[in-house]
């Protein structure tokens, strides 16, 4: 977001120092506003021109658009970066399954949408939205959309190329706040009229970017505030170029017609590759015609990777975790790091052994075992001190600890520092179930 400084704000204020805003001077008010401590509404005397200038400059380069029922809505847009390393990407790409209203398995597909839920390193990954596409029959479309809405229970996209077809479903489901798809050069007046009336967000489509800019402006002029841009199905190269141009125009040029999230279609190429491209390069919604888990799960994982905050690896609290049910003082104790990925992999492997175990997670600033060891964030001194601090000699009878095989080199020094017995475990935690059985038998 292009933030204004106090001086730039001050220039637009009445400069009468009347104090109605609650601050003694216009400059004091400007300073508070620059720090986002007050709102522009507090000054009753600002001119329309001044307000316009300030609001325009302060608006985010890409508008945040929400859809879906209150409480379960999804948010897209409001991005500020071209590259995730500059800060981070904020609103993860939504993955959407398209179901045609004449699909023989419409109900099955709609009900199954809920099953796409995976717990990966402590985060839930979902198929976020479901779309219903009209095949022609108005009545059927409305009926199918209602059915999908109740069965899938997800934010929806209603897809039809004319307002007449979409209207019945849109009115009937208005309270579930679906995203309407789509205004085209032919239908935009009617579509925009409907979206404005029902206050629903609207996809604006044109294959050509000049046309898309024009249409976006026209639709906005009709009173539609929430727009999603769509350049239609393309091959990978054009998708990458178009997505980059739209994002750059919005962020670097503040080109308003493109200041909206973008929807990406996958039907003209390999959907898995297009999905991966969209997640990495700026798509806010990706439409899939079919969603085999073997395709979608990797894309969800990529999304999790790309949208992680580059400054903060996902981390666990450093402490002792009980795994596979309540433990006692004779349960085995194992060591790992607080990198979420490491923790969840090791945890999963211990669970497979079904042996109630204690897992000591040490603070390595979110680094994996090998990385932390190489960076000296996982040291014998550190581990020994943590064992002492937690008072583990009280709760672990055998006074021994199993360490990852990758850091076997640490075993001697850790024995010395802690006075505990150190057992070197397998290099990969997948070997733990077998290993633990031999240990406890």
């Amino acid at each position, binding site marked *: 977001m292009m933030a204004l400084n106090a001086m730039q704000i001050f220039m637009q204020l009445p400069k009468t120092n009347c104090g109605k805003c609650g601050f003694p001077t216009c400059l004091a008010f400007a300073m508070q506003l620059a720090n986002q401590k007050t709102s522009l509404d507090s000054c009753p005397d600002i001119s329309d021109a001044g307000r316009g200038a300030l609001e325009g400059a302060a608006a985010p380069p890409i508008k945040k658009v929400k859809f879906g029922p209150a409480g379960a809505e999804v948010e897209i847009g409001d991005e500020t970066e071209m*590259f*995730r*390393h500059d800060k981070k990407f904020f609103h993860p790409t939504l993955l959407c399954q398209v179901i045609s209203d004449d699909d023989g398995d419409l109900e099955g597909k709609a009900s199954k949408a809920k099953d796409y839920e*995976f717990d*990966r390193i402590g985060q839930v990954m979902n198929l976020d939205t479901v779309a219903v596409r009209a095949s022609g029959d108005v009545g059927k479309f409305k009926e199918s959309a209602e059915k999908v809405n109740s069965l899938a229970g997800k934010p929806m996209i209603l897809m039809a190329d004319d307002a007449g077809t979409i209207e019945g479903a849109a009115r009937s489901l208005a309270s579930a706040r679906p995203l309407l798809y789509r205004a085209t050069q032919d239908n935009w007046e009617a579509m925009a009229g409907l979206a404005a009336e029902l206050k629903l967000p609207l996809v604006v489509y044109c294959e050509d*970017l*000049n046309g898309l*800019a*024009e249409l976006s*402006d026209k639709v906005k002029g009709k009173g539609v505030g929430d727009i999603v841009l769509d350049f239609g199905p*393309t*091959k*990978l*190269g*054009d998708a*990458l*170029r178009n997505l*980059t*141009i739209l994002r*750059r*125009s919005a962020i*670097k*040029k503040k*080109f308003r*017609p493109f200041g909206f999230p973008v929807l990406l279609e996958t039907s003209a*190429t*390999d959907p*898995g*590759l297009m999905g*991966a*491209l969209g997640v*990495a*390069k700026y798509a806010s919604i990706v439409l899939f015609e079919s969603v*085999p*888990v*073997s*395709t*979608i*799960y*990797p*894309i969800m*994982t*990529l999304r*999790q*990777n*790309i949208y*992680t905050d*580059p400054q903060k690896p996902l981390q666990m609290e450093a402490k002792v975790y009980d795994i596979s049910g309540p433990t006692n003082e004779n349960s085995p104790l194992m060591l790992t790091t607080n990198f979420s*990925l490491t923790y969840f*992999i090791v945890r*999963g492997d211990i669970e497979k052994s079904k042996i109630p175990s204690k897992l000591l997670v040490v603070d390595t600033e979110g680094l*994996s075992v090998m990385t932390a060891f190489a960076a000296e964030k996982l040291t014998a001194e550190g581990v020994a001190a943590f064992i002492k601090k937690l008072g583990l000699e009280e709760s672990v009878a055998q006074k021994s600890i199993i360490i990852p095989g990758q850091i076997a080199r640490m075993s001697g020094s850790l024995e010395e520092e802690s006075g505990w017995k150190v057992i070197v475990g397998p290099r990969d935690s*997948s070997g733990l179930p077998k290993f633990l059985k031999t240990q406890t038998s």
Partner: protein
Amino acid sequence: MVFEIPKEKWSGSIREITLGATKEEGGTRTSKVIIGGSSALPYLNFEGSAGRKAALFMDVLDTLPVDFPSVVKEEFGDAINDPVSWAKKCVEFGAEGICLKLVSTNPEGEGVGNEDAVNTLKGVLGAVGVPLIVYGSGHFDNDTKLMEMVSEAGKGERLLLGSAEEDWYKSIAVASMANGHRVIGFSNIDINLAKQIVILLKDFGIDLNNIVMDPLQAALGVGLEYSYSIIERIRLAALMGDNLLQAPIICDLSLAWGAPDVNEGDRLGDPVKRGIEWEADTGMSALVAGAELLVVRSPSVLRKMKQAVDELYPGGDE
């Protein structure tokens, strides 16, 4: 409406590097591969040249590790038990080059002799006409001897030798210079280290035009985001004019198969397709970040990456 494509002005470009040498050039390859040459962010030909098409090599190991993915074994069938047949199969599948990993030479592992490994190399060179990348086992002491032999055996072939690291670069640099080979500078997901290894090689006497950079491609779900951002940052610095970072980038996708999710049975969908998508998505992210040479493991992924490169490359969309 006046809409202008927002273009970035770049002062730098990526060096072009040729792998493989034909008969006229003193080698025996029937095809060559040229990588690099772009002067814009990946595939953004509206602001500069998209350069050469990214090249797709396939990896061939001289001995199969126990954890080698069964999906890929099945795709290759019996051929996978013999590196020469394996390499031939790769070329049939459409690989533009072979990445031969002489892992058997690790004295702490199988400890097969270097002579046997070099014979494998000669066999592969004789059986296929495409350019080769050759790696040792990662055991520095042995690789020092091995790479000298590899360099001799591949004399004139313009091999790409892997890989120089901060702690071990002199012997491979010598092996590369001795017989006109190219060399990979490896670093550990860190832009400064990526630059550091190039500086070490350059100061040692290697021509910058002979260096390919490997910033370590982590697998999807296992640190991919770090690799992705480092490649993007390296590419941006190169385009902004940092001469030392203007080397083409190689990404080895084989690590993808080590991600725990790949070995999860069928809880997460068809395990065969999932493994393939796992490698393909790792590759797709590498391509859009800036990689120009991919080492692919599965034939199905090769097909997908071929489609990706053909579609991404300007003029290739059809």
